[in-house]
C-alpha cells in the first residue's frame, strides 16, 4: 500500500512545476498549461485525502476537471483574440495594462 504522503509529494511537486511554468514562461499557452498542471496537482491532493473512505474528494476532482476544461476553452478563445489583436502571444510584449 502506497502511503498517503507520496501522493502529497507528487501533488506538491506537480503544483510547483505548474507554478514554475506559470511564472517563467512568456508564452500565454504555456502558462495555461502550467495552470492546468496546478489544477491537476490539486486534483491529486483531493484524491489523496479521499483514501480514508468517502467519495467527496473524487467528486471534487471531477468538478475541477470539468471547470478546468471550460476554463481552458475560454482561455484559449481569449488567447486567440489576443493574438489577433497584438499579433503575438508573448505576455511581456502585450503588457499594455501599465500606464
Amino acid at each position, binding site marked *: 500500500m502506497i502511503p498517503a504522503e507520496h501522493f502529497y509529494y507528487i501533488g506538491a511537486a506537480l503544483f510547483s512545476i505548474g*507554478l514554475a511554468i*506559470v*511564472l*517563467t514562461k512568456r508564452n500565454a499557452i504555456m*502558462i495555461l498549461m502550467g495552470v492546468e498542471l496546478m489544477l491537476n496537482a490539486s486534483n491529486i491532493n483531493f484524491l489523496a485525502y479521499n483514501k480514508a473512505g468517502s467519495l467527496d474528494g473524487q467528486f471534487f476532482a471531477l468538478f475541477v476537471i470539468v471547470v478546468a476544461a471550460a476554463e481552458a476553452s475560454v482561455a484559449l478563445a481569449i488567447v486567440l483574440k489576443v493574438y489577433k489583436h497584438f499579433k503575438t502571444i508573448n*505576455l*511581456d510584449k502585450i*503588457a*499594455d*495594462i*501599465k500606464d
Partner: protein
Amino acid sequence: MALISIALVIFLIPLTAFAMNVIAPKSRARTASYISIILLLISTILSSILLLKIGSESAVTRMDWFTVGSYTFEVGVLLDFQGVLLLVIVNMVSLLVHIYSVLYMAKDPGYTRYFGFLSLFTFAMAGIILSDNLLMVFVFWELVGLSSYLLIGHWYSKDSAAKASKKAFIVNRIGDTGFVVALCIIWYQFGTFNLDEIQVLMESSQLQNGSWVSGLSALPAVWLSFMGIGLFLAAVGKSAQFPLQVWLPDAMEGPTPVSALIHAATMVAAGVFLMSRVVVLLDLTTLAIIATVGSITAFMGAVAALAQYDIKKVLAYSTISQLGYMLIGIGTGAYEAALFHLFTHAFFKAALFLAVGSVIHSLHALKQKHNLNIDAQDMRIMGGLKSNLPVTFYTYLIAAFSLMGLPLFSGFLSKDALLVASLNWSAAVGQLAYGVSLLAFATVTLTAFYMGRQLLLVFFGDFRSGFSVSEIQEGGWHFKVALIILCTLSIGFFWSFNPFDYMSSWLLNTLPAKLNSTPQFDLEVRDATNHSFVGVGSIALVMAGVLLAWLKFKPGKILTFAESDQLSFLERVSINNWYLDKFYERTILSFIRWLTLVLAQVERKVIDRLVNSFGWIGVIFSFVVGWLDKVFIDGLINFSAFFSSQVGGMTKSFQYGKVQSFIIFALVSLALIIFLIL
C-alpha cells in the same frame, strides 16, 4: 406764502439767466444777454413788490434739508425788511450793470461767460440775503467768493488778472476760517444754525462764573468773544477790512462793471450784511474790536486813496474806507446806520465806478484809434473831460458829492448817522474810544480831498494826453441809463423826507431796533444828542477837504507829477497802501516761502529718506522671504512631490503590467499570510 413764492422766483431767476448764458452759443450771445436783462428786470420788479408788501414784518419758511445722525439741517427763506431792501438793491444794481456791460463788453471774446458769471453772482448774493440759517449763508458766501474770483480773472490770459483773482480768493479764505470756527462754536453751543432760534437762545443764555451757559451746554466765556471775532473775521475778508484789505485794490483787474457790482456795491457789503444779521451774537469785546478795526480801515483806505494815479484804484481804496465806516456802525451798536450806509453806498459807488468805466471806455477807444501805448486808467493823462462826457460828468459829480457827504445827497444822511453813532459810542465807552471817532472824522476830510482831487484831475483842466479833447466820445444809451438811474438814487430825497436829517429817514424808521442780547450787555448809545453838532462839523470837514483839493489841483494850475522815487513820504505811504503788500511779502509770504523751502528739504532729506529706507527694508525683507520661500516652502512642497513620485514609482513598479510578477507577489503575500497565521 405768496411772499415766499415771490422770493423763490426772485432767487431762481438769476440762476436761470446763468444757465441760459452758459449754454447759449456764441452767435446768440447778444440775445442771451438781453434775455438776462429782461429776467433781471422782472426780478427787480418782483423784489420791489416784495419790499412794499413786507414792511417791517418778517417771515420765515423752512423745511428739512438733510439729517446727519440725530441732527437735522434745514433750508429756509427769511424775509425781512433789511434783506428785501438789499435784494432790491442787488437786483437793481445788477440789472443796471448788465445793461451797462452790453456796451462795455461788446467786443469781448468772453461775452457769454461774463454775463453768465454776473448772473451767478446775483444768484449767490440773493442766496446770502434770503437764507435763514448760517450754514446756507456760508454756502452762498463761498459761491459769492467763487463768482468774484471768476470775474476778477475774466481776462485770465493777463498775468496780473490771474494773480489778482488768486489773491482775492486766498485772502477771502483766511477770513472764512473765522466763519467756520464761529459756525462750530454756534453749533456746539446752540445746536442750530437758524438765525431766529439763535437769537432766542442767545437772549436766554447767561454768563455764570466765567462760563457761558445756554441750555445744557456751557463753554468758557472767552468762546463768546471767539464766536463774534470769528464771524467778524469772515466780514474782514469779504468786506476788505484791515488787515485783509489788500485783495480789493488788486481786484480792480476785473472789468469795471464787475468792480461796480461786486467790488463796490454788493459783494463787499455782504460782510457788513452778515454782521447785521448776527449783531445779536456780538459781545462788548467783539464790538470794540469791530469799531477799532473799522475806524483803522476807514482811515487807512482814505489815506491810500490820496495819491493813487489809477482812476479805479482811488475808488477801490475809497470802497475799503467806506466799508470801514459801515463796520464802525456795527461796532458802535448802530447796525441800522451801517445798513443805511451800505444801501446808499451801493448806489453812489456803483454810479462812480460806472462813470469811471465810461471814462476808461472812451480813453480806450482813443488809444485804439491812434494805436497809443498809454494806460487808459491813468489820471495823469486825463483832464478836461467834462465837456465831452457830459452825462458821465454830472452823474459822477452827484455820486462824488454823495460819497463826500454833502447835504442833499444820500451819503450825507448815512455818514451823519454813522458819525453820530461813533461819537456817542466813544462818549459812552471812554477816553481811548475817542480814537475811533477821531479817525472817522479825519476820514471825512480825506474822502472829500481824494474825491475832489479825482474830480479835478479827470474832468477839469486840460486834457493831458497830447490829443484834442474833442476826440473823446461818450458811450451810448446803455451807459447813460445805468448812470442816470444810479445817481438819481444817490439824491437825499429818496432816502429821507428831510434831506438834512437822517432821523426822518423812512429806512431807519422801518428797520426794527435789534437790541443786543449778549449777556451782560449794558451799553446804551442810542440817542441823537450830538446830531446837529456832527452835521455841521462834518460839512465843515468836507469843505476843508474840497478846499485843499482845489488849492492843489485847481484848473489852470500847471500840474507836475513826480516820478515814483521823488514822492514825499506821505505820498509813498499812500500810493503803496501803507506798504501792506510789501509787509506781507517780507513777513508772511517770505516766511511761507522759507517754510516751503525748509519743508521741501525736510521732505527730500528726511521723509524721502525714510520712505527710501522703508523701501530698502522692504526689498531686503522680500529677498529674505523669497529665499525662505524658495528653500523652505518650495522645498517642502518639492520634497512632498518628490516623495510622492518616489512612492508612486515604487508602487508603480508592482503594477508594471507583468502579469507573472503579480502572481509572484500574490504568492509571496499568501505565503506570508499563511506563515503568520500558522
